[in-house]
């Protein structure tokens, strides 16, 4: 396969089926008379088990799209499907259901519950999931099996973020969404976090979308989607994925 450079185009092979399917997605924020066009018509399919990285200038609409794909927000117009499920037709309860059953989130600032230990933070999610892995297993997967009884305040930033990843993947989500997961971390720690994401993507087959400012990180993606001014400016397919371990910045 070669690089496909036409904006809005979708990589599609016979074997690949879209996990998420977005067409003509726009988002306009209105405040008073001001209108901000955060997304101006985005078409994007996330293929099952792929890892895509979203890059682009600050304010270009990456987070807005991720939030819509994750069922946190509704587009102003356009169409978003998760399999047969029309996300744009969902009410709050249905979107909650969708997030609960199918989506794992990793946030820039970890967002662990300070009053729960690492293991309990993971259990928080597994308790409400259908077919979760054991919290300990999820922590093992991110290399934190021995820190399960630590509270967030007793963990470093990188460790907290790995707990957050364990929490996101413990329910075996089809979709894993990470908005600048290494944004608050130094390079060394960031790499360990990326390794965890990479491993989860590979071993669990979760379709993963990862937003980053860091060009180096794009090397670990199957595809790199560049945003500019609310549109997809470019989609690049990586012929050779670089393992996260080899990335530095």
């Amino acid at each position, binding site marked *: 396969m070669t690089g496909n450079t036409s904006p809005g185009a979708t990589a599609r092979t016979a074997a690949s089926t879209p996990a998420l399917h977005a067409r003509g997605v726009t988002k306009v924020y209105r405040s008073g008379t001001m209108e901000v066009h955060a997304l101006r018509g985005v078409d994007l399919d996330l293929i099952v088990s792929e890892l895509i990285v979203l890059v682009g200038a600050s304010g270009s609409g990456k*987070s807005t799209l991720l*939030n819509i794909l994750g069922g946190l927000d509704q587009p102003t117009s356009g169409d978003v499907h998760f399999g047969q499920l029309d996300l744009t037709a969902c009410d*709050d309860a249905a979107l909650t259901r969708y997030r609960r059953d199918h989506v794992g989130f990793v*946030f820039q600032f970890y967002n662990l519950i300070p*009053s729960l*230990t690492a293991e309990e933070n993971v259990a928080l999610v597994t308790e409400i999931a259908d077919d979760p892995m054991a919290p300990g297993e999820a922590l093992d997967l991110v290399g934190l099996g021995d820190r399960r009884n630590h*509270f967030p*305040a007793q963990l470093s930033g990188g460790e907290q973020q790995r707990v957050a990843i364990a929490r996101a993947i413990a329910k075996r989500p089809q979709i894993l969404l990470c908005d600048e997961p290494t944004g608050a971390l130094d390079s060394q720690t960031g790499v360990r976090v990326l390794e965890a994401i990479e491993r989860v993507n590979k071993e669990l087959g979760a379709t993963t979308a990862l937003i980053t400012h860091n060009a180096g990180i794009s090397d670990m993606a199957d595809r790199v989607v560049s945003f500019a001014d609310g549109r997809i400016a470019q989609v690049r397919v990586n012929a050779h994925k670089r393992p996260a371990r080899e990335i530095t910045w």
Partner: protein
Amino acid sequence: MVTLQMNALNRKLMRDLWRLRGQIIAVALVIASGIAVMIMSLSTMESLDETARAYYERYRFADVFATVKRAPEHLSGRIAEIPGVQSVETRIAQSAILDIDGFEEPVLGFIVSIPERGAPLLNRLHLRAGRMVAPGRPDEVVVRESFALAHGLAPGDSLEAILNGHLRRLTVVGIALSPEFVYAIGRGALMPDDKRFAVLWMGRESLAAAFDLDGAFNDVALSLLRGTRPQEVIDRLDRILARYGGIGAVERADQISNWFLMNEIEQLRTMSGILPSIFLTVAAFLTNMVMARLIATEREEIGLLKAFGYTNWAVARHYMKMVGAMSGLGIAIGWAAGFWLGRLNTRLYAENFDFPFLLYRPSTAVFVSVALLSLAIALLGGLGAVRRAAALPPAEAMRPPAPPAYRRTWVSRMPGHWLDQPTRIILRQALRWPLRSFMTAAGIAMSVAVMITALQWLDAIDRMIDVHFMQAQRQDVSLALAEPQSREIVRDIARLPGVLSAEPFRSVAARLRAGTRHKRVSIEGVPQVPNLNLVYDAAERPLSVPPGGLVMSTKLAEVLGVGRGDMIRVEVLEDHRPIREVPILDLFETYIGTPVYMEIGALGRMMRERPAVNGAHLLIDPLDKPAFFRAVKETPEVSGLALRQAAIDTFDETMGEMLLIFVSFFSGFAATLAVGTTYNSARIALSERGRDLATLRVLGFSRGEVSYILLGEVAILTLLAMPLGCLAGYGLAWVMTNAFDTELFRVPLILAPSTYGFAVLFGLAAAVVTAALVRLRVDHLDLIAVLKTRE
């Protein structure tokens, strides 16, 4: 525009106030409640006091009162010579049975003489309608207003009275009030009964003629020169009057009507202390909670301000202003509510007391001092938090606070795999700040306690009625005779129609003296084992009264500082005025009054008289009541009667009305406490955990599940508060009943299970309503903001 002149900090202040308006209003309402109760009680107290003072002065309420059997008029000259006496007014005062057209029961009348010409020197009447009696018209009377109202009497109407055994038809010419009868109750009654007790004023000459007291008096009132000690005058007066059947003069403070009024004022004073302390304490805590939280969320701003060069003091002042604004709002609401409630309350009190005018002019001093007090308490409450803000080093403030450090505690170690994570969050949160949790629970508990205290009065009154009227009194009617009579009259009384059984009693005025303490009492002579009017201990134990000593109420023993087995000096104030040392044989607990009993035969022997009685307690066949009443009206010896059922009814009615108002005030205040505390802790929980909760929403938790985490803590604290509140309620009720322990009433500390139950339900309901209010906010959690911001 004002905003243009405001500096940036003040603008921030305004915005903060607006943003936190819900919480600020909640705190303000609690402050307002405390202020309102305080102003209400103080202003009612002040108004009653001022009204009474003005009334007494304008209408020349006397300073000393004395009654005698019969004294020659010329004695007044000697009385006037007592040093310190300003003016003397001799009078005739008599009890009589009245017959009102269309009212079956006999009415107890108290007739006081007034000069036929000119106004009385002392105890002047305030004429409401008609005129005073005219000379040469012996059948004219002026009647007390509330009695006239109760029977619809107007000038021109007439009524019948048995004066000294003669039936007389009297014409009402005037309706009046008197400072002597601001609170008017018949002998032995507990509550005013305007239908069955009347005060009439008659011309001196016609009253003298009716009672064979020409050239004599049987009652005297004195006013004293400013600065005179009443006791010295009383001692001299008693010496002059002793041989004329004087039974001891009393000073104004002990005059029945005034005594009741002052008692009431005293109770208001008590009230103005206890409740506001609770409210203001809770308000201080809430202020602290709100301020601490606000300052915690504004660390960065504070750091920034300091980095810009604002001084610690400027920062502190900024937050103090916030506290000031919060209490300012509370003070304003409290002032308004207190003024309004005070007026309402004063009017209610005034209904029980007959004043010709009512001065409701609460002094500025009350408003200002209450405001300053609550402001000081609020600032004290906010002080800790504000000091933390001022002490925050700028660099430190710029760093977000480290995530609150949780450690493994017994909760996390509990073998509780059964605890789901949301429940763990709740428990750990509550235990992480145990003091705050406790204070929240305490705030809610206080609302339950206040409710219990209010409701306990209903239980207590029920109990008082039950013991005093139902268990201790078996008689239907008590008859009083105009003069003591030989015991044979009881047989005549027993022969009146409808009388099933009669039990005689003898009342003797006496002074009991123990060391330096003494008290004027009426010793009741009763059979050794009373069958109708029992000598009854509140612990539901009837006592017998063995001959040879006194059996007295514990309250009287307490007042005199004596106990069972002690000897006490009895100075009889009637007839031969014997003085004896007698033992105290037994004590008993009563809720009402300070009775003292002696076996009737022994009392007679002490009096050195042939067995005599002042009246009898009777059991009446209900079917024969009308005939009995008719007969009583025709029996000249009878000067008064008391109906047990009527006493219960007026007690119920008067107390019921007061209590209804009292309980509704308290419910309002209790609700404010509960809502104020719950709302603030739920809102603070929301602001502290908003980010966590939004995170959970992102992770797929539903609104309901997230609300559980938010409100679970409040729920746990509320549940914890319930037993705490019941305990505190018991304690508070104890304090209140003790504070209201007077010679008139002892309110028993009785708490029915239903009182606890109702108070708990009330507290829970307030919490649920508040929680529902905060729950709405969960729907507005900004999920996306969570992903962006750090805190």
